[in-house]
């Protein structure tokens, strides 16, 4: 970290009951959330969940049908995008194809009539942070995807806005570059101390970068919590099935609450029990408190093996076992687990029920 570090330069973002409707279709339905100044918030969800709409409402590119947006304690609901103090990185990068890198980065500063000396200072700083000095005279068409991404970041940096919005900024990059940029964006956000609102459908990005994960589904918030909490105590069955690679197993419980003699939850039916694939351990066949299953396929990933199995009643179960499990298809296995690792959800509402003892 450098001496010029400017922690605390961010501004809090608060959405209160924000909704966006097109006719009878609600893209966002009463979303309220608070992002602390200088924190990294990831809006996570499958496509069509309203996360991009939410971001665009904060940016002012979309107007909310109802509700208010505050940035730094100021109500910006009816302000134009330029007056909100936000910078944005678009999924497509939105670089001007006819301008070179330097012109692209200072485009907004010129539009705002920032004096040339100040413009140069900000450009030099962004260029130094991103290491794109050798690209300044090139046009976007002459840059690789990763370089274009940096230019888009540069444009956001020179704006020196307290809030930075990113709409799936890494989705156009290959896997290796995506991992690098993930670290770089996080380091940048920490260094500049800005508030980040970051939209993605990739839960690994959310887990790796976020201070706060806001999981959206069908226009409402499923869970708003730090990533560790979303992982450890998912608020809904959807949250459980969205986070983790592979995601949590959700097993429909019969009336008895037990499958093949193993008690997985309280009796009564209408419940789902969840267990993370990595919480399952392979044990010798014939053990007493284990989940019996038949291996349908084992996928060896190097550090671990993901074993796809099916239970006696046909439900599928994934287990993530360390190393090379070496289980042939059709093998009968029994998994040991701790009861503390079980999560219980209401099958009808998807809501989390009290953790079984």
């Amino acid at each position, binding site marked *: 970290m450098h001496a010029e570090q400017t922690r605390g330069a961010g501004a809090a973002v608060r959405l209160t009951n924000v909704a966006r409707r097109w006719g009878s279709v609600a893209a966002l339905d009463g979303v309220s959330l608070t992002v602390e100044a200088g924190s990294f918030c990831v809006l996570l969800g499958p496509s069509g969940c309203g996360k991009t709409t939410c971001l665009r409402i904060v940016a002012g590119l979309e107007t909310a049908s109802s509700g208010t947006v505050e940035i730094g304690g100021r109500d910006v609901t009816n302000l*134009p995008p*330029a007056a909100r103090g936000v910078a944005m990185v678009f999924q*497509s990068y*939105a670089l*001007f194809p*006819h301008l070179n890198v330097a012109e692209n980065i200072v*485009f907004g500063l010129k539009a*705002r009539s920032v004096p040339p000396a100040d413009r140069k200072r900000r450009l030099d700083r962004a260029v130094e942070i991103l290491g794109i000095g050798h690209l300044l005279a090139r*046009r976007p068409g002459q840059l690789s995807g990763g370089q274009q991404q940096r230019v888009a970041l540069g*444009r956001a940096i020179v704006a020196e806005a307290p809030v930075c919005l990113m709409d799936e900024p890494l989705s156009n990059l290959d896997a290796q570059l995506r991992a690098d940029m993930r670290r770089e964006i996080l380091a940048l956000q920490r260094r500049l101390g800005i508030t980040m609102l970051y939209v993605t459908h990739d839960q690994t990005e959310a887990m790796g970068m976020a201070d706060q994960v806001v999981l959206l589904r069908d226009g409402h918030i499923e869970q708003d919590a730090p990533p560790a909490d979303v992982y450890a105590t998912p608020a809904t069955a959807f949250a459980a099935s969205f986070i983790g690679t592979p995601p949590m197993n959700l097993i429909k419980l019969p009336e008895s609450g037990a499958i093949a003699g193993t008690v997985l939850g309280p009796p009564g039916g209408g419940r789902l029990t969840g267990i993370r694939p990595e919480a399952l351990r392979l044990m010798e066949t014939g053990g007493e408190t284990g989940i019996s299953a038949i291996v349908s396929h084992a996928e060896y990933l190097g550090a671990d093996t993901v074993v796809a199995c099916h239970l006696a009643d046909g439900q599928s179960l994934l287990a993530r076992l360390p190393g090379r499990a070496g289980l042939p298809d059709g093998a009968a296995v029994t998994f040991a687990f701790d009861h503390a690792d079980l999560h219980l959800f209401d099958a009808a509402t998807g809501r989390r029920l009290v953790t079984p003892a």
Partner: protein
Amino acid sequence: MRKESLQAWLLLLPALVLLVAFTHWPAATTIIDSFYTTPKGSRPPRFVGIENYADLMTDPVFWTALRNNAIYAVWTIPASVILALVMALAVNTAMPGRALVRMAYFTPTMLPMIAVANIWLFFYTPDYGLFDHILSWFGGGRHNWLGDRATALPAMIAVAVWKEAGFFMIFYLAALQAMPPDLKECAALEGSSRWNFFRRVTIPLLMPTTLFVLVNAVINAFRLVDHVVVMTRGGPDNATTLLLYYIYEAGFRFWDQALAATLTVVLLGLLGLLAWLQFGVLGKRVHYR
């Protein structure tokens, strides 16, 4: 290998025959004819060198036609291109009846030139024509729009702008629709005014279209003949004689082959020069994606 090249030539043959018969061969003979006298009856054409060109330089009608054509080009080209851009920007926004307006703008392009000329002939008719009719409501007198030396050429220019602008609009509209909406949103976030965005982003990104449209506008301005034939026949007193109409008259009314060939070569040279200038000057400033 030889069989393949034979096949290739056979496939090229139909296009080649048509191109040579109707484009290259006539072009070559025109250039040759421009150095010979017009054959008349028993007198075969005689080689006269550049005498035809020297005669042309002293031909007052040629200079009138050239001047008329220059005025015609100087007005129709910028007027139709700017109008096309304005119309494209107008119909590129979300507004009710957008499809209808787009179609209306494009209608003049779909109409045959002769039909267009006849419609406008009615508009310009003294007394009961559209323009005189409207002017009469405001106490205006009768005008012989096409019969007056002062108004005949401007009247022709108006028809051309009306016809061309809709056609060029389609190209501008296509280019505007190909522009990613992200750019506009990004500029809005960066505090760029609409005018600044138009000047610094829209116009530069439309430059390839503008160049294409300009080249077409220039060519169209110098090859107009249909409207002149139907509406004025070059009159009054050559006030609406344009180069191509003069070529048509020389070639097919006076049967002066030498003059027609010489004029054609001059027109071709002029068009070539203009195209070269446009690509040379504008081409460097155009950003192609």
